[in-house]
């Protein structure tokens, strides 16, 4: 019999009950909650007279709506304010763990979970947010759920699920200098498409993935959902265990060692079989820039905007044509000739300390180009911000004419005041380039932090190593 995949192991240890048709009641260890997808779930709970099953499994934080500028005055937009206040009253009503806006531990839910040790290897982690896949980087089974499921997990600590197929994406070999985790994941989506992973749990493997830091692995797992997969994961190794050690909510002392011993088993067996395997050569991956309105529409930074006329599939060609019109781009244009108006460094994909360091390294001693109306850096959490300030990164950005903001989702989805105006073009380290995502009529180009920083300095897309001065 073939060995087990990491997904098999995570699944099997969480089965509470299995019905003959395969529907499985799966136990949930960690439930992360934010203000946008939870109000209706808490309301449902209350209307039915139910209590949270295991309140200590919940960690709640406001992130989507919070302002990234001075917070002393609170939230200006009354509708956003109501939503954040609703979260506050729900968590206090049910006695749940919560980091309010003024707490230094507040930040994007997917940044603070690992940072706090609230997400650990071997856990099932859910959140009413599709980028919950991020936490899979720790060797956890983590996936996004809808609001009805949020209510279900609150009430029962479980979810009905069916086991999906398992896909392995292997990235082998050495990355070229300047190529980052973000480029890997954009290249993967470019290859398999935004529905390529639908119906699968993806395990990212191979020497290039193992060579990444845990933060880099998070950037990759984060965008599993853009590849259509609800969950992405990476096997546990010593880096994982060192990452978790000393995190505030992680076990300590002997208990930590006992846990670590178990965590080391969270790898796919060598003879495990996957339902699909995709292989990429790391050396062939170039820094990526998205040119269209779907994350699969990517090109290497030294490439060109593709021509729909060269696409044989008619439905695809039409999608490309529509994307080019929305993005106001001509086929054949070199990517390096595209000039953004704004630059956004942040989001649960790329707002951790390493991301800010990578961007700061490019920016250091340089200045933002004149055509860039706004370049903003939004750290993923208050603790990331604090760390960056201790390292002097804030000075580097400020000296270069960037704005240094408070933590939150910000212009990743523009639910707060940070947004693109119609027609504006943005180099963004976030994860979605859908129409209107960063503001109605806004045009998003997804890139790594280093490329976003380089674009801010040059005023157009460029490989950081090619920057003068």
């Amino acid at each position, binding site marked *: 019999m073939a060995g087990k995949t990491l997904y098999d192991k995570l699944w099997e240890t969480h089965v509470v009950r299995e019905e003959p048709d395969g529907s499985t009641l799966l136990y949930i260890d960690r439930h992360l909650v934010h203000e946008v997808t939870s109000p209706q779930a808490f309301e449902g709970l209350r209307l039915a007279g139910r209590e949270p099953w295991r309140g200590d499994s919940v960690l709640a934080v406001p992130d989507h709506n919070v302002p990234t500028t001075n917070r002393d005055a609170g939230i200006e937009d009354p509708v956003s304010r109501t*939503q954040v206040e609703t979260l506050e009253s729900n968590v206090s009503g049910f006695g749940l763990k919560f980091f309010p806006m003024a707490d230094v531990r507040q930040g994007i839910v997917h940044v603070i979970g690992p940072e706090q040790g609230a997400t650990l290897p071997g856990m099932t982690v859910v959140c009413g947010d599709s980028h919950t896949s991020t936490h899979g980087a720790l060797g956890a089974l983590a996936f996004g759920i809808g609001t*009805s499921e949020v*209510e*279900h997990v609150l009430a029962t600590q479980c979810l009905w699920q069916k086991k999906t197929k398992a896909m392995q994406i292997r990235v082998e070999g050495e990355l070229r200098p300047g190529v980052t985790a973000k480029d890997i994941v954009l290249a993967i989506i470019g290859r398999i498409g935004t529905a390529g992973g639908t119906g699968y749990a993806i395990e990212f493997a191979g020497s290039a993935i193992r060579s990444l830091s845990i933060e880099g692995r998070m950037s990759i797992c984060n965008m599993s959902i853009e590849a259509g997969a609800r969950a992405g994961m990476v096997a546990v190794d010593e880096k994982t265990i060192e990452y978790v050690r000393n995190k505030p909510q992680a076990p300590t002392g002997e208990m930590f060692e006992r846990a670590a011993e178990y965590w080391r088993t969270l790898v796919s067996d060598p003879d495990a079989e996957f339902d699909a395997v995709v292989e990429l050569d790391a050396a062939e991956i170039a820094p990526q820039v998205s040119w269209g309105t779907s994350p699969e529409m990517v090109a290497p930074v030294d490439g060109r905007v593709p021509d729909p006329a060269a696409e044989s599939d008619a439905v695809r060609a039409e999608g490309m044509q529509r994307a080019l019109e929305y993005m106001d781009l001509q086929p054949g244009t070199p990517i390096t000739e595209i000039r953004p108006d704004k630059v956004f460094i942040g989001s649960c994909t790329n707002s951790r300390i390493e991301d800010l360091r990578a961007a700061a390294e490019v920016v250091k001693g340089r200045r933002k180009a004149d055509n860039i109306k706004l370049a903003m850096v939004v750290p993923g959490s208050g603790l990331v911000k604090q760390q960056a300030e201790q390292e002097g990164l804030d000075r580097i950005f400020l000296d270069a004419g960037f704005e240094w903001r408070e933590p939150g989702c910000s212009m990743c989805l*523009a639910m707060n005041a940070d947004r693109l105006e119609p027609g504006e073009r943005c180099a963004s380290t976030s994860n979605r380039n859908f129409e209107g995502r960063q503001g*109605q009529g806004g045009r998003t180009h997804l890139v790594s932090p280093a490329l976003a920083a380089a674009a801010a300095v040059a005023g157009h897309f460029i490989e950081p190593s090619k920057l003068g001065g």
Partner: protein
Amino acid sequence: MQAFTVHKGIVAPLDRSNVDTDAIIPKQYLKSVKRTGFGPNAFDDWRYLDPGEPGMDHSQRRPNPDFVLNRPPYDQATILLARKNFGCGSSREHAVWALTDFGFRAVIAPSFADIFFSNSCKNGLLPVVLAEDEVQNLFEQVEANPGAQVEVNLEEMTVTAPDATVFRFTLDEDRRHRLLHGLDDIALTLQHADDIRAYEERLRQDRPWMVE
């Protein structure tokens, strides 16, 4: 949840693939703490020519005459027909609430994003997967006969096209059962409370660091 057994209605052809949840319900409307009232803002960016904000009187805005749901008889549609990977993007259940609030009871497409699919099933909006050529066939029939009705039957798991062709689809038994009877998921799960407690007992033994 509203039960789904058989539904017959007008089909609106939305000829796009990868329709994402940001398009179905733009983020400014996610600030609502309610489950209802999203209908006027379904496909907001495509549906209106002027930008919308929560709290506006949307009936006073300028509709985009080219958008399918603004063109009679499709403004009365209760079944949505689309291309592959419908509902991709975020987990927002608001996308489903917007479609049901508009009046949709079913969406037919060659494939759906996973989270959208399960969100739909939990709200009585039936996601129907048909083969790509069957979807193409429906597009052609509907576009040739605007206002033509299609019947979606969950008991039989069939779609009957305007020309009486019958297409078959499948849905897993568990979801089908819950939809047919409009069952409350949580109440059903709580019937297994003893299993959940037994699991937690084992968890405290085997992996005590997971339970604080």
